[in-house]
């Protein structure tokens, strides 16, 4: 948990936003694309419960994307395990370790200690970003993606390192200060807010970006607009023509698709004008065979516009 050397410049790409907007899917899709291009990618998730971490299945990866299979790593960090590891490192004797880990007072302290689990999670994330092969000094991974938990828990995680100082003194508090610095360093943290173009998700994205800026001096690098209508990126003149042509009640499906599409378009331009960063539109995928196929299609939809 020491300060990383400035030359390392390992980056963490963070997919953050409201629950249910597709952070896991989009981060895996981009990871698959990059891994298939030959880059070593690790996707780290941190959902509070392990069984929720990867609901997206990578079945068939080895046969369908052999290059990606060799380069793609998906890791779930379980905070309780990380803390247990610290105990194991601190005490060399196994019976001491076991007596602590099985102690109910210890177990309940872990649950209620404010920010403790988040603290160890961030520490491990930093470690992963800094890790490199001993001989060559090259990073273990070319890209580190953090599939972050939904907004509230994500901001809470980032705040943990900072809040930890209030409760602690000594080496852990110093480590907390280090972590706080690392996770508010714009050169290290690439924030990619991910959202659908629905009202609640957009509002939450804007609030999250404001909090990132204010508390951590982090500005988003781009915003990913997931499950968007084809109208979001269409030419204004084409849309005018379409609006003029639609109107008859017999074209109900068209009316619906047009209304929703225009709404999404308005929200996309609202986000763009408020955040002043690049918008990357991911059109809603029409149909897919299985999870891996969905990831592949989203990767294609991201195309050359993909950040990171």
């Amino acid at each position, binding site marked *: 948990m020491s300060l990383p050397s400035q030359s390392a410049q390992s980056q963490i790409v963070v997919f953050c936003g409201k629950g249910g*907007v597709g952070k896991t899917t989009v981060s895996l899709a981009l990871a698959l694309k990059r891994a298939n291009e030959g880059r070593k990618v690790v996707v780290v998730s941190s959902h*509070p419960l392990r069984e929720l971490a990867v609901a997206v299945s990578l079945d068939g990866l080895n046969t369908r994307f052999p290059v990606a299979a060799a380069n793609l790593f998906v890791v779930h960090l379980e905070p309780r395990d990380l803390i247990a590891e610290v105990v194991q490192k601190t005490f060399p004797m196994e019976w001491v370790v076991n007596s602590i880990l099985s102690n109910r*007072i210890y177990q309940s302290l872990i649950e*209620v200690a404010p920010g403790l689990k988040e603290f160890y999670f961030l520490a491990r994330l930093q470690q992963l970003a800094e890790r490199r092969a001993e001989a060559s000094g090259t990073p273990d991974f070319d890209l580190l993606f953090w599939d972050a938990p939904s907004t509230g828990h994500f901001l809470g995680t980032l705040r943990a390192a900072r809040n930890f100082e209030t409760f*602690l003194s000594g080496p852990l508090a110093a480590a907390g200060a280090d972590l706080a610095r690392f996770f508010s360093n714009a050169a290290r943290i690439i924030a990619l807010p991910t959202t659908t173009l629905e009202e609640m998700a957009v509002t939450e994205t804007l609030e999250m970006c404001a909090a990132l800026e204010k508390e951590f001096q982090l500005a988003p690098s781009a915003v990913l607009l997931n499950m968007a*209508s084809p109208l979001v990126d269409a030419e204004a003149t*084409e849309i005018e023509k379409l609006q003029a042509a639609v109107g008859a009640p017999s074209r109900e*499906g068209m009316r619906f698709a047009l209304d929703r599409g225009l709404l999404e378009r308005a929200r996309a331009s609202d986000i763009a004008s408020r955040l002043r960063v690049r918008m990357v539109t991911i059109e809603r995928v*029409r149909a897919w065979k299985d999870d891996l196929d969905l990831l592949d299609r989203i990767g294609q939809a991201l195309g050359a516009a993909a950040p990171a």
Partner: protein
Amino acid sequence: MKIVVYLGTGGVGKTSVAAATAMQQARAGKKSLVLTIDPALRLRTALRLNEGPLEQQVTLDPAPAGELWAALLDVRATLDEAVRQYGKPSSVERILSHPIYATIADSLAGMQELMAVERIDQLSRRGFRHIVVDTAPSRHALEFLDKPVAFADLVGSGWVKLVGRTYRFVSSTGIASLGRRTIDLYARIESVLGANLVRQILDFYSIFVSIAEGYADRAKNTVAILKDPSVTEFRVVTTPQKALRDAAFFTEALRARNFPLGGIYVNRVWVHEPAHDSGEGIGRRLMDWYRAVRESQTAAVNQLRSQYGGAAREIRVIGELERDIDGVEALERIAVELRMAQGA
């Protein structure tokens, strides 16, 4: 007493479906309350929801035969109320101003689940007999049944009392009077977590213990009610894309706890017929896309019916709204769809 619990992952419109269900019950002459977690701003305004422990009656036009009430699950406010109501008068202020208390509502994983049960108990004490519960947007929503039981078991086993007594003993007599093994253990835990933090938490537990015990008793009663299938019905809300995955997960989660699956509600389905003469250019592209997405939605719903038609009491489809009407109007429309689906 009738309780409907909605389960579902994020972004499926669970809160709206829950509120519409309560509205439908109110229209049918019941005094019904929807307990929600985190409603969108306009729904919040429509339901007149404030932060805090109080429930609000929602006025409808035309007025319903019964009454529609709404309440927000505010974890901190629910906890505050429990402390004030059940804490020893001498310790209430000490608890509320304790630095650990300030963070416990946010930091204790599952606090929302623990407090949901407490809130249902508060509401039933206030005379509500028809409650619709909108759970936290996650796949582990059923934790709100598991956590309180686990918590009650812990409290019942006396460990909280032990921590409390040990702490009071240590702070009055000094650590040297403790047994050697206990000192060793404390010293080790402190060396991992930091002494200051450990002492703060122990201090907090020593005064919080009576609240925790009272909570555990009430939680056991409430969970027993929630586990009674003649009182409580569990329903899953999902979207076409997530339907099969969510159905598999929640069916199994409910089965593992011996709860019957009430119904699966597939929300946000594109129900409108695509246009056939979509012209050229963007209109053509839009309609091709719309038709393809709609076809894959229909396929998912059909597969859901064939796979879970037997397990679920019912499977219903709710159409996606074309514009932003998140307020009472949107609820009325969903309520109409729920009624229509019921009649069908």
